[in-house]
């Protein structure tokens, strides 16, 4: 019999709906996985076993009845500490739930814990968390990716059936590719961000980690749709599973575009081989593969680090030691209260980005940097739209390398920024993108590829993702529990 922690979210929900008593056993199986795995991988921050047990006991029906999940620690959860991986929010216990958390709960899902992340979602490895680095379950000396690394690790190890993360520049897709998971960055405005702690508001989207495309689509259908509390949600943002074909033949007749001009250099050879394997697999599934052209992605990285930091410098002004979180105890005037609280509360990467963003927006530099980046953003969006014209999605690697070693890029901010080189374009353009597991390196590290579509094309991405999943096939390769 399949252990509960190996089951898909869809399978758990069906079993619980048929037999409500099983939700508690399902939860206990996942809690056991947490006890066994988390000391080695440090995926989780605050846990809520008590709340989870009560919810499992009460689980009756709903599309996610009794399904255990974890949420990145930048999503507000009523009564459960929310730190964003930062000392400046220690302690902070939100008095309300984020809209996505409330929607999942209403569908029967069971929040088990909060997941570790880079501080305020700024990073690509979780090494910027103030509470320690998460580790890749496929190789404990390597990073799980970031910033939503803890969410990825929890899903990959069976601590949770799925997880929520967030993306500003690739923070769901990159860790998904590093941990053998499906990872969705939805169209800008399809998931409400009410209760998501803001980083770069014109870029931020909540994302979903799952072990299968079908589970990802299921969670997306529950969570998506307009929200009165987030005026950036799209009025037509809801997503329905009705008529969605996720069979291995679902991609037949569709076309993907491969931007070969940007894949010629800087690509790890095993990642390049995975890209070829993905193209061949889709070909076997009846998908046409066509060559397209994109602007060099280095321009995306440059644009992103001006826009995201400018927005962050403004968003993070709210952490001032007055309404919540940490306050420096030795400040005797208001200015010192701000500067000491923020100087001590924020870690180095967050400080670096606030400084860069403040600089890019400051008098005398605004036109040379911030405005220039906004002009580049329009060019990038138009370029992506042109590449998507005549194809159903783009297919390209998610990360230029397999998971890198802990510490390898921690001292070189620019090298770390470049690990997002292939993911950032979708965030700048506001379009959806889906990481799908593809293969493993010779040493057993996961490699994913991504499908990037036009705005609101999640359904097409799911179809293509299911086609790829089906064509690659085989048993899931779970990470081995360290002895």
């Amino acid at each position, binding site marked *: 019999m399949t252990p509960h922690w190996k089951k898909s979210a869809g399978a758990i929900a069906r079993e619980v709906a048929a037999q409500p008593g099983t939700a508690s056993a399902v939860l206990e199986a996942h809690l056991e996985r947490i006890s066994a795995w988390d000391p080695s991988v440090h995926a989780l921050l605050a846990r809520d076993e008590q709340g989870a047990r009560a919810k499992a006991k009460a689980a009756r029906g709903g599309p996610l009845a009794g399904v255990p999940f974890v949420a990145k620690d930048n999503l507000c959860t009523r009564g459960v500490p929310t730190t964003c991986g930062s000392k400046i929010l220690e302690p*902070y*216990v939100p*008095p*309300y739930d984020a809209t996505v958390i409330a929607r999942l709960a209403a569908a029967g899902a069971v929040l088990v814990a909060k997941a570790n992340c880079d501080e305020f979602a700024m990073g690509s490895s979780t090494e910027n968390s103030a509470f320690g680095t998460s580790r890749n379950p496929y190789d404990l000396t390597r990073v799980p990716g970031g910033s939503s690394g803890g969410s990825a690790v929890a899903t990959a190890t069976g601590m949770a059936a799925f997880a929520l993360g967030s993306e500003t520049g690739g923070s769901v897709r990159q860790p998904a590719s590093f941990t053998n998971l499906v990872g969705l960055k939805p169209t*800008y405005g399809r998931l409400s961000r009410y209760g998501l702690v803001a980083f770069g508001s*014109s870029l931020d989207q909540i994302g979903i980690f799952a072990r299968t495309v079908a589970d990802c689509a299921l969670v997306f259908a529950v969570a998506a749709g*307009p929200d*009165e509390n987030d*005026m*950036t949600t*799209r009025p037509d943002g809801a997503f329905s599973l009705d008529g969605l074909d996720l069979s291995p033949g679902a991609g037949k007749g569709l076309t993907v575009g491969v931007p070969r001009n940007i894949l010629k250099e800087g690509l790890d050879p095993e990642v390049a081989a995975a890209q070829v394997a993905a193209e061949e697999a889709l070909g076997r599934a009846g998908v046409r593969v066509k060559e397209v052209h994109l*602007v060099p992605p*280095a*321009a995306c990285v*440059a*644009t992103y*680090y*001006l826009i995201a930091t400018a927005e962050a410098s403004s968003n993070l*002004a709210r952490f*001032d*030691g*007055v*309404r*919540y*979180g940490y*306050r420096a105890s030795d*400040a*005797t*005037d*208001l200015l*010192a*209260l*701000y*500067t*000491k609280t*923020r100087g001590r509360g924020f870690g180095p990467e967050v*400080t*670096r980005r*606030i*400084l*860069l963003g*403040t*600089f890019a927006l*400051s008098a005398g530099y605004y036109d040379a940097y911030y*405005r*220039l*980046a*906004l*002009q*580049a*953003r*329009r*060019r990038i*969006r138009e370029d992506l739209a042109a590449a998507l014209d005549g194809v159903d999605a783009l297919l390209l690697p998610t990360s230029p390398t397999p998971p890198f070693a802990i510490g390898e890029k921690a001292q070189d*901010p*620019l090298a770390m*920024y470049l690990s997002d080189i292939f993911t950032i374009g979708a965030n*700048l*353009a*506001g379009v959806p993108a889906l990481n799908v597991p593809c293969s493993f390196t010779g040493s057993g590290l996961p490699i994913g590829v991504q499908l990037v579509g036009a705005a609101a094309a999640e359904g097409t991405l799911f179809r293509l993702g299911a086609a790829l999943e089906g064509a690659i096939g085989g048993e899931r390769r779970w990470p081995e529990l360290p002895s």
Partner: protein
Amino acid sequence: MAIDKDTVRHVALLARLELSEEELERYARELSAVLDYVTQLRDLGLAEEEPLAYVNDAFPPAREDRARPSPISRAEALSQAPASDGTYFLVPPVVEYLEP
């Protein structure tokens, strides 16, 4: 573009961040490297391009402006404050108190 320690000091004050001399030096070095990298955008010939600040072409229609009761009580809202008196958030004196 290289930025110096004094520029970082000025920006840190704007951003309300207290930094040590050593940190100012380190951030000047690191930020200069990033600013060098972003100057590649000047080669894209963007002078005629209209800036794009928001990806959706239209903002959603404005909702009706009506008051709703807050789901959060005053006590809950104040419960996370480092200092409060039960009615207000407390901060150090903002204006000097002068004897009348």
